[in-house]
């Protein structure tokens, strides 16, 4: 068999690279350029404006806080659900389908669904009133109830976005040979030991993928927050939206977009390094 020329793989991948460059890199460069454009020539004015804005510090804090709370909870929940699903004999497909329903719902629709539950005339207040626990409609989503609002957003995010983590982890679990766990069991390892010593290490590549994807999406959270809290809970993507659409200042909006990208890239780099897997540990 003749040896294949070494350039064939690159030739085959070229169309995708060109496509990616045209539809991703060009807009990316334009956005970065826009973020440094103000008046004549290059300038840091847009970044200064962004950093000095009323909601900047709050948006950064809220975005990080939400990410730090939601992502770990989602990973834990997804691990629990994935483990249970894997152990099912009957009805596995049905359970999996039900658990992934939120994947098919848009962010904004999910936010509006939770809004219907939690607003003053929503189901939660109706139920609490029927049980005699509240005297009348109670506000949970206003700027005067920041803790309740944060909790509502966390709940909506958990419900909406845990499924993506679940799907990745289930795929990862299926790659782990059953024999590993069986062998450990024979040698007397307890379930918790098997989970922490065998399953988790072998699941590391999937965890890496899930964490990268979920964290990047968490830094871009917008629609759920917008639906539930409007401007009561500023987040970075929300501020980018406001500067673009309300303030019509595309330079500052671009600066926010670049900041979000920089944070996402940094988080990705951290995960790639911290969860790096040595080749011999791969399943």
């Amino acid at each position, binding site marked *: 068999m003749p040896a294949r020329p070494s350039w064939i793989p690159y030739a085959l991948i070229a169309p995708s690279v060109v496509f990616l460059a045209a539809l991703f890199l060009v807009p990316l460069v334009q956005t970065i350029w826009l973020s440094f454009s103000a008046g004549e020539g290059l300038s840091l004015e847009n970044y200064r404006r962004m950093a000095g804005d*009323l909601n900047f510090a709050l948006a950064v804090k809220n975005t990080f806080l939400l990410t730090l709370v939601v992502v770990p909870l989602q990973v834990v929940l997804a691990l629990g659900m994935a483990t249970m699903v894997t152990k099912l004999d009957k009805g596995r497909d049905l359970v999996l389908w039900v658990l992934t329903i939120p994947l098919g719902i848009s962010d904004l629709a999910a936010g509006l669904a939770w809004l219907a539950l939690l607003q*003053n*005339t929503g189901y939660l207040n109706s139920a609490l009133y029927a049980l005699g626990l509240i*005297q*009348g*409609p109670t*506000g949970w*989503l*206003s*700027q*005067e*109830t920041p803790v309740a609002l944060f909790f509502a957003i966390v709940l909506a995010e958990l419900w909406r976005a845990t499924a993506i983590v679940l799907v990745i982890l289930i795929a990862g679990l299926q790659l782990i040979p059953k024999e590993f766990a069986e062998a450990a069991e024979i040698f007397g390892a307890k379930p918790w030991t098997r989970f922490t010593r065998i399953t988790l290490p072998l699941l590391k590549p999937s965890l890496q993928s899930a964490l990268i994807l979920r964290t990047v999406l968490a830094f871009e959270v917008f629609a759920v927050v*917008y639906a539930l*809290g*409007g*401007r*009561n809970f500023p987040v970075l993507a929300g501020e980018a939206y*406001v500067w673009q*659409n*309300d*303030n*019509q*200042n595309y330079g500052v909006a671009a600066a926010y977009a670049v900041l979000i990208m920089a944070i996402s890239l940094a988080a990705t780099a951290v995960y790639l390094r911290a969860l790096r897997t040595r080749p011999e540990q791969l399943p």
Partner: protein
Amino acid sequence: MTHPVSLRAIAAAAALFGGLTVAHAQETIFYSTQLRPIEEATKVREVLLKGIPGKVTYVVDEPPAFAVRMKAETQAGKRTASVVGALHGELQPHVPADLQPVDDVAAKLTDRGIPASLMDLGKLGTGQQQYIPWMQATYVMVANKQALQYLPAGADVNSLTYAQLQQWGKTIADKTGQRRLGFPAGPTGLLPRFFQGYFYPSFTGGVVTTFKSADAEAGWNALKELWAVSNPNSTNYNFMQEPLLSGEVWIAWDHIARVKEALTLQPDQFVAFPAPAGPKGRGYMPVIAGLAIPKDAPNRAGAVAVIEHLTKPQTQLATAAEVGFFPVVKAELPTDLAPGIKALAGAVAATQNAKDALVSLLPVGLGAKGGEFNKVYMDSFQRIVLRNEPVKDVLEAQAKVLDALMKDTGAPCWAPDKPSQGACSVQ
């Protein structure tokens, strides 16, 4: 023999091309920033534009895109729209390069009874008519009748003061346990206009020049007291008709088009009345939309026909009934008008005819910086009322932002501020 055949062919071709030209010239593109929501746009297409000879295509766009397109078509030397509909402030930047004078149209419409003051506005500061007033709206207060029993002694809803409104809200909160005064402070609420057309003029007599005056400081302190009795969900409200209908809010301020549904669905439940007065008078902001003809319009005759049709009394009344914008022409509202619309019409009339009425225009000359102009007022609200920062400090800081913005845009003062030479500045 050859010659007659050629002549016949030429004649046939001329007739054909002439026909095509006539067919093409019959279409009029009506490009508008107004009546954009799909329900309203549908009303325009199916009801309000009925009866105009030829085909009229109604196209809607956001104000910033409207501005870009008008300029772009002028630069390109190719115009698509023959008639445009937009607010007074949105048309201002397009004089003289993008619009053509319509004095001839104005002359045709003298029998419509459009007030001279509105026609003067339509000159946009020039000696010629630049747009014909199309329709008007304003902002009003709407109250659930349940709230009327809690009015302060001696207060008349048609001549409320801000102090009385605050007392009213406080009494309701004390007696019912719920704060039921509401403002549209949500993401797409029109609260910026409350500051620019109602709050600032009423308390300070100006909107830009008086931004950080002692009167403004007193006004913001009064607003903090008002907010203390306002529904905390106000920062989630965008259209006040929703919380009014749900009973969450009993007293609200908003644009007519955003409270209309409450009065239409439950006319027996609500009353409408002018916004309150402050120390300087009863500030109010008429929202005037105008019809203009772009320079080099493809079908000027069609544009004139659209303008003539839309300013007919019956079309203006249909506009009021269908989309909640009120006539600019002399038109007797019919006795069979829906009760909700009648209540709104009463509130509009009471607002305009108030002895202490103080007119504010929509911001003029800011171009694409209108959003940042709104932000100055909303940031002040956020910092002073929601985050409880010291009033004087906030006004000093925000005044710098506002002043820089006015200098950047070069926008001259508009009512209620006195006319300025060059950019309007904070004093």
